[in-house]
């Protein structure tokens, strides 16, 4: 058997040929265990607070208000944002011109610049009208509302998309225009 060096170990006991090794110290260094413990604590600390979901408030306009009253907003301050499928965003300022010349395409990143520019231009007259079409998703809707919050837009409204606007959106997306259906859900 290999010989073990017993020098410097526990006090020499009596007796020759102590085959057992030196008496090992039983002191364990607990520093790494404490580190692990605190790591786990911070983990639980963060997961309990973050798991709380936030609630985005939305106040709906009274549906009983007649559409004519809605148009009291000044056209110069109006920015209409249309949401289509595949995260497409379109917008136009003021009223939609009959030939669709002010109908522009954008996306969720650039729309912020558009809103900010319009806000600087219109200041307190700014009203953003959001019109999602049937192919847009809930995420698109929430993202646009979030954008309103980020850009501190005071007045905004969610309105049903009109058939003309829907047609423009679908044409721009490359879809064929659907047959004009009987008046959509209002």
């Amino acid at each position, binding site marked *: 058997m290999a010989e073990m060096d017993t020098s410097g170990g526990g006090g020499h006991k009596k007796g020759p040929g102590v085959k057992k090794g030196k008496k090992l110290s039983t002191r364990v260094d*607990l520093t790494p265990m404490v580190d692990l413990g605190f790591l*786990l604590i911070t983990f*639980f600390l963060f997961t309990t607070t973050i798991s709380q979901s*936030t609630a985005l408030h939305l106040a709906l306009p009274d549906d009983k208000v007649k559409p004519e009253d809605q148009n009291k907003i000044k056209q110069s301050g109006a920015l209409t944002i249309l949401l289509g499928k595949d995260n497409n965003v379109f917008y136009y300022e003021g009223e939609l011109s009959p030939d669709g010349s002010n109908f522009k395409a954008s996306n969720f990143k650039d729309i912020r610049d558009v809103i900010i520019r319009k806000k600087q231009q219109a200041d307190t007259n700014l009203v953003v009208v959001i019109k999602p079409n*049937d192919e847009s998703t809930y995420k698109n809707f929430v993202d646009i509302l979030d954008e309103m*919050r980020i850009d501190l837009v005071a007045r905004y409204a969610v309105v*049903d998309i009109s058939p003309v606007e829907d047609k423009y959106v679908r044409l721009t997306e490359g879809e064929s225009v659907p047959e004009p259906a009987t008046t959509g859900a209002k």
Partner: protein
Amino acid sequence: MARPKIARKSTLVDMTAMCDVAFLILTFFILTTKPKPSEAVPIQTPKSVETKFVSDKDLVMISLNNEGHVYLSVGDNASDRAKKKAMLEDINTRNNLGLTPAEITTLTKQSFIGVPISQLKQQANLQPEQINSKVLPGIPAQDTTNNQMVEWVRAAVNAYQGSTMHLVLKGDNVAKYPVFKNILTAFKKNDQFKFEMVTSQSNVPAGTDLYKKNMSGKAG
């Protein structure tokens, strides 16, 4: 020269006590995190910079999953469950479903309602593990002619009369807009113009107006 002898002390600290404290705190946090019920209706909510939290009482939650199915649930506490029972009894009498009190109690205990009103009796007979979005088809709200959400929101409004009610909508990222619009119609028909939407937290992008406002709010 006799140098003053500095007694050398050991620099090894006994970590036992600190370890005990660490595990005590850890146990505290493990026990206080409320066990989240395994997602019966898996929904991925969109992100938003909103900072207000969803309340967990006086809560009526409408879940809209990625396939456009609608499920209704209430807050996880006694007063909300009592109101859910009142809602079920209301729907029962209005639609002559003939639910027995035992079935109503089962339905109240189940985590959410996800069937057309006519099939409520069948849902009462389901096992707890069958209460998820795979089995249950959801409350019909896909087209405007058969929007049963109007009924349910009306029942909720009646049940919560006199106390606050937080109408909360938890929608999935890819849920399409038409179903959402029908749910909004159900709210409007019951004169509920304020409601909340559940989102996950996200940070305010730097440089935007809201970010500047928050910064000046903190500094001011």
